[in-house]
């Protein structure tokens, strides 16, 4: 797993009705029909399997991709699957204007980078452009545009460097 702080990859800008897709809940990210799956490698195929317009995400996603959404990404249930399905596909990070609280914890604990970009305009970034995300500064660059979000918190940074909550605890 990567421990880099500068991530480069293709940017998925999730859009609904011309705006950044908001309120993507955990059933849209990873439907409850597949909750009995416990092997992370099998989870990738179900990523966004219930998200209108993106049901073929798992087929089209490439390792290294970055995902960008609107407000309240990952609201809903506590399922870790909704984080792990992205890790399984090799997605490097998810960015959103805001995240559901439990989703945020789950991502941090599994060492998966998420960055909040509060106030991000709907049309600043374009789909499938190459982008560069700086986790330490919270800055996303793509094309000619740049946006300053919230830098990774200290807890998130430490757990990310360790590779997960348990690995971090071993070093405490």
């Amino acid at each position, binding site marked *: 797993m990567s421990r880099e702080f500068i991530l480069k990859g293709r940017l998925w800008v999730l859009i609904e009705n011309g705006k950044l897709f908001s*309120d993507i*809940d955990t*059933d*849209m990210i990873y*439907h*409850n*029909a597949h*909750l*009995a*799956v*416990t092997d992370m490698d099998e989870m990738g195929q179900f990523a966004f399997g*219930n998200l*209108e317009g993106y049901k073929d995400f798992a087929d089209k996603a490439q390792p290294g991709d970055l995902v960008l959404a609107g*407000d*309240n990404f990952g*609201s*809903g*249930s*506590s*399922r*870790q699957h909704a*984080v792990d399905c992205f890790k399984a596909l090799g997605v490097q990070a998810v960015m959103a204007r*805001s995240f*559901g*609280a*439990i989703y945020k*914890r*789950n991502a941090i*604990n*599994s060492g998966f980078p998420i960055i909040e970009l509060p106030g991000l305009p709907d049309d600043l970034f374009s789909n499938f452009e190459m982008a560069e995300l700086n986790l330490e500064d919270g800055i996303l660059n793509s094309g000619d545009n740049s946006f300053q979000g919230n830098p990774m*918190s*200290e*807890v998130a940074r430490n757990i990310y460097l360790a590779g*997960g*909550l*348990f690995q971090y*605890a071993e070093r405490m």
Partner: protein
Amino acid sequence: MGRTLIEKIMSSHGGGDCHPGDVVWIDIDNRTARDFAGASVVGNLEKYGGDSPIADRSKTFFTFDCNVPANTIPYANNQQRIRIFAGKNDLKVYDVDAGIGSHVVIEEKYAKPGTTTVGTDSHLNIMGSVGAFGQGMGDVDIAYAFKTGKVWFEIPESIKVTLEGMPAEGTEAKDVALAMLRRFSNHELLGKSVEIYGRWVENASLEDCVTLSSLATEMGAIIAFIPPNNNVLDFFGMNCDEAVYADSDTTYLQEYSLDIKGLEPLIAAPPSPTNVYPVSGKTDVKVDGVFVGSCTNGTYQDLKYAAELLRGRKVAPGVMLKVVPATRATWAKLLDEGLLKDMFDAGAIVSNAGCGGCASGQIGMTGEGEVQISTSNRNFKGKQGRGNTYLAGIGTAVASAIFGRIASVLELKKVM
């Protein structure tokens, strides 16, 4: 300066002199996992738990409620894997007969006012109903809590909401919760600890408090605390000196007042719990099925009310009425008091205790185009099947089952 409720609970659980934004390690009184994600908790502990995967057996247990008894082989496998692990480590399992874990934790008085509880259920913040901290977390967090008794927690900002006035007759706790969702949507309280005050909550039953706090997740809040009133204190056999309250001189990030005087029954139309309308504006919607139950509206008080409304009446032809009591104890009381017969005679299907309609089809899913009225807490697309789910209180749900279209309990009482 005074402290908010969450700051006080966290300080008394190892958080020290903590303030919003601080990340602290807190002691967890009750560490739980359900059948959903519980197997992954076991997997984490087998991988990382070492020789002593459980810090304190008396504070650690499993609650099966999601798919009970298992109707898929993967769920059956997961439950069995948990039973074997629990057996090896001498942990209690509230098995497939027990009912909804978050309710069992209150019913068994583990989650007393002022305590801390975590589990793999995103509605574990229901503990806010008794002035206790609760939080749903993923399997990594919960495995860590099982092993160490602790989790990290970022102290959130607190918001005070005062409910002004009393609702109209026929309006229930769910309608008050829907009024909050209508007012605050899922953004305004996002990531915040909410404290709810006002005459209504001061007089609410424990069950009403459970209903209101259970919708905190849908509001995006970390938790919605209701300071323990006499009804709640009586249930736990405590007096107010033993419970935790916010200091009277504390300050909040924001203070709102929400007028619920004369509030009428409300309903949340698909596809979001925040898409709220007066029931009276939706009475032309034909209904195919009704689900009564869930951690939001599955208590004895809720089901007794449903049974009383159903007594001597019939569910409309072609309408399914599915009832799932929250816990086995609720089931037993309904049985003892003859209330199950009222429901049965009216045409209801009554299932064993559990999460019912919200989980993976314990009591059936909805099909394409099917309209369901549910007393649960989520109507996101695909959550309860392919159909269109509306969220409402017991009165609206039962009245709708009887009329075969969306109807309020006031209509039911007027006409029949």
